[in-house]
């Protein structure tokens, strides 16, 4: 059959086996998601996650006093810092607010601040950052023009997560993976059963066994490509949305999706290999 015919057969097979194609694509997507989930669970640290470290950058004396220009400078710094990797939140604290905070922290001993002016403290930037980057961030801030002093407040450990959190995640991933694989096997089995019925027809037309199943093989592979792609995108989105530690690296995600596509090709080839006994002998 010519290429035009193969294309027509592919379209025809798509129409006849559309539901199976969809089921295959969903199954491949679930397998990809489960694989990505397994990778994320595997990467997660065993202990409780540390809370964000706090870096306080005191701006040079006079920044606040310089009026609107100093405020603009603080805002500009805040915007720059917010874009830096590992920085979770940045807050501009004015001299007045800083004094108020100090009063609150001192509590009963706040009397020592009686009579001091509102410019006792310099205006500051309070930065919440991942502990891994907080030290480097503090060093960079100290070198920055307009920053007088920098304090690094080490992160305290976050409250311990319930002991079975990791186990539940692993169980969920394993369950999703198993269900995906079962759906994959079931969809391929349906496609294979349908092909066996059609095979006698294709063979009677004079098509070779390979040519008879080729469009179905392409369909299964395309379902694998679409499903794996959707699964990879879904995994990336879910990791970005739900995991503060960040997404899976794009390269790793692409490699994973490619592995699932290869798996799609291999599994389809094996599943759609119709034995010699079927159809004509």
């Amino acid at each position: 059959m010519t290429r035009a015919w193969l294309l027509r057969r592919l379209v025809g097979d798509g129409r006849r086996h559309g539901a199976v194609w969809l089921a295959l694509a969903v199954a491949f997507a679930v397998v990809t998601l489960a694989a990505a989930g397994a990778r994320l669970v595997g990467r997660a640290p065993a202990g409780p996650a540390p809370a964000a470290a706090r870096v306080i950058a005191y701006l040079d004396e006079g920044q606040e006093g310089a009026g609107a220009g100093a405020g603009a400078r603080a805002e500009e710094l805040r915007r720059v810092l917010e874009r830096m990797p590992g920085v979770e939140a940045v807050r501009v604290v004015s001299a007045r607010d800083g004094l108020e905070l100090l009063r609150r922290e001192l509590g009963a001993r706040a009397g020592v601040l009686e009579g001091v002016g509102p410019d006792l403290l310099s205006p500051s930037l309070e930065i919440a950052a991942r502990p891994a980057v907080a030290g480097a961030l503090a060093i960079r801030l100290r070198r920055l023009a307009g920053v007088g002093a920098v304090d690094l407040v080490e992160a305290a450990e976050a409250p311990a997560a319930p002991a079975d959190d990791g186990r539940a995640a692993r169980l969920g991933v394993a369950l999703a993976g198993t269900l995906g694989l079962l759906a994959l096997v079931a969809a391929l089995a349906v496609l294979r059963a349908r092909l066996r019925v059609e095979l006698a027809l294709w063979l009677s037309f004079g098509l070779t066994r390979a040519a008879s199943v080729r469009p179905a093989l392409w369909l299964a592979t395309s379902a694998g490509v679409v499903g794996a792609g959707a699964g990879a995108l879904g995994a990336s989105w879910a990791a970005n949305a739900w995991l503060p530690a960040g997404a899976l690296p794009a390269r790793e995600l692409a490699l994973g999706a490619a592995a699932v596509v290869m798996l799609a090709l291999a599994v389809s080839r094996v599943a759609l290999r119709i034995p010699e006994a079927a159809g004509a002998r």
Partner: protein
Amino acid sequence: MLRLLGVSLRLDDRALLDEVSLQVRAGELVVVEGQRASGKSSLARVAAVLRRPDDGEVWIGERDVTTLQDASMPFVRRNIGFFSADLPLLPRLSTLENVMLAAGARGFEPAQARELALRALGRVGVVGAATRLPGGLSAAERRLVALARAVAGAPPLLVLDDPSAELAARDAGAVLSAILGVVEVGGAALCTSPDGSFAEAVVRAGGRRVRLEGGRVLAGGGPIGIVGARRPGAREVDVRVEARR
């Protein structure tokens, strides 16, 4: 065109075909008549190269196809139009597309296959159902479409297993007319039928009747191994077996 020489086929200990010898020349129509379980369908499958016999030779054109490798068989089958009630129409494809596929497998381009498919559907009287899906056809219409699929493109050899079953007399007449259309352009046609009246109609149309019983040809097998006189106007069709690349 088709010669079966001493063909035997067994299923377990039972002989489905017992040293059957039969010849169908180019431009000839032969009907194999026999009761149920007389071996007609097995004979049709062997003749259509869909089944290898246990013994004997199956000559198509100038080649004994029993000596070919399995991989070469599809290239022979492409020259054979085969009909059997077992072969389904593909669902969700229109009647026309179903018939076109067979013509496509015989090497016709889509546009040409479409024309041939419409002509074949017209010959068996179901051209009006061309755009309908098989699910919307009656049982008789589905059989007629499957027959159109077999005759589309006038294959050099036509093998039809009980083509008149479940058909009204008028439809059976249309089927015979379609078969004769292939025979007139030099094709060889072998039909099986348990229906005496269909066999009679074939004989009246110039065909030859062969009686099969218990897997053995009782009468009418034809001059085996002898090149007989061809029908006037018949042309010898060369069935080529392409080597697999």
